[in-house]
């Protein structure tokens, strides 16, 4: 039975945020440093080396990629702030339900998003100020380039159905990383393992799909496929939650 109590979840959120403060600070600083390096490289160092124009477009692409990747693989980071058996033990013994604990762990990637946004805006501001101080005429904000991208995306000739396809596919992919995050929870780079499994799965699917096409007529309608992927994603989340419920404090590899 799934138990959820908003009051208890509030206490758990406070507990988790206080315990994970160091992790969030470190993640913020890492992203801030990475973005600043990227921005200054693409807009400063590279032009000095090759006399090319500052590449704000590349900066925008990096930022979009960073957010997109974080949204997709985010759930696999749900145990990153916990180092080892003792942290797991503290979490598991806390008087809150498994569902509340899972939800709080899952939310860790969502909490990182505003921090990444602040890191991006700060890095952008710093690159702008650096160019201003150095007297570069081309100084501009990467943020403005990002806004341009939004206009470009709006202009992409995709139907609502195509956007829905993309959204469901990303949701499905996201759910796979949620499953991988709990399945490989005792591994440091569990997103890498999940990606490897995903690629292997794709190869197997492509191979079987290829033979299927030859042997069977394609009877699946588009809507059924969408529904199937959506349900599959929900099953992945359910499995991920169940794996979390079955977590034990001592175990090997997948730690079931």
């Amino acid at each position, binding site marked *: 039975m799934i138990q959820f109590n908003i009051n208890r979840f509030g206490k758990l959120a406070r507990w988790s945020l206080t315990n994970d403060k160091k992790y969030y600070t470190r993640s913020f600083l890492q992203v801030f440093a990475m973005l600043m390096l990227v921005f200054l490289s693409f807009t400063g160092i590279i032009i000095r080396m090759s006399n090319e124009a500052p590449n704000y477009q590349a900066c925008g692409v990096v930022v979009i990629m960073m957010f997109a990747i974080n949204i997709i693989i985010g759930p696999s980071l749900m145990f990153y702030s916990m180092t080892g058996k003792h942290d797991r033990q*503290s979490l598991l013994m806390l008087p809150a339900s498994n569902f509340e604990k899972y939800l709080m762990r899952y939310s860790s990637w969502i909490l990182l998003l505003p921090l990444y946004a602040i890191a991006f805006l700060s890095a952008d501001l710093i690159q702008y100020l650096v160019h201003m101080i150095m007297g570069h005429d081309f100084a501009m904000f990467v943020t403005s380039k990002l806004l341009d991208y939004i206009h470009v995306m709006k202009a992409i000739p995709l139907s609502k159905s195509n956007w829905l396809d993309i959204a469901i596919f990303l949701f499905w992919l996201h759910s796979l990383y949620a499953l991988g995050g709990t399945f490989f929870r005792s591994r440091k780079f569990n997103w890498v393992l999940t990606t490897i499994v995903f690629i292997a799965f794709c190869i197997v699917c492509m191979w079987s799909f290829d033979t299927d096409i030859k042997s069977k007529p394609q009877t699946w309608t588009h809507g059924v496929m969408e529904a199937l992927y959506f349900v599959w994603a929900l099953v992945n989340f359910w499995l991920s939650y169940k794996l979390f419920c079955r977590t034990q404090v001592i175990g090997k590899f997948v730690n079931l």
Partner: protein
Amino acid sequence: MIEVKNVSFKYAGQKNLVFDDFSFTLKENNIYGLLGKNGTGKSTLLYLISGLLRPKKGTVSVDGIDAYKRQPEMLQELFIVPEEFDLPAMSLEQYVKINEPFYPNFSREVLEACLKDFDLTTDLKLNALSMGQKKKVFMSFALAAGTKLLLMDEPTNGLDIPSKSQFRKVVAQYMSEEHTLIISTHQVHDVEALLDHILILNQQQLLLDASVSEIMEKYTFEYRMPDQMDDALYAEPSLQGNAVIAPRKADSAETQINLELLFNAVNEGKI
């Protein structure tokens, strides 16, 4: 209160079962001493009771709730002090602030009193403490949590000699009647004065499950000379003569349990 029923358990990747069809029941409001040699499954049993491990077969329930489900109602009445643990890098005040709300019977007065008895103050930075001090802080928090069931795994490991007696004092003082404490240890001398009930665990079985009063009623623990060994069930040579366990005669006075002697006698199958 705690029911372990036909439990089988083994660690992943290991051939041998730690428990095979193992059963026992523990009643409320006692201080249990769970004794056993290294590797007999004492810690595993505590982890099974707390729900940190799940049996392969059988059930472990606390107040009728399956422990492996780790329901909040069970967890708010259960606290485990593992042999090894880590405290987060924060002040004690902050630690208490974020953990206290989960335990409805938490008492700041008990926490402060326990810390005082352990010669510690309340303005501590948890990451600046030695392992022994961390243990004292964690045990103080555990007692202050006021849970019905408290599990301690090797609580005196890492404590210096004065701290061991402080530990006994603190437990005796703050473990009230309506609480149950299970102390798992192989350092029997450290806890023998505290216990109400003794459980001696050996490979996959409970060799002894008896209250201290039952043991004291049945046996006498004394030092004897070699010519007084007629009725001795078990004896070990010592500086004061032979340490002996013998059946207690109806008219003789009760003697203090020698837990180490009892433990050895039980393990050798003499009792």
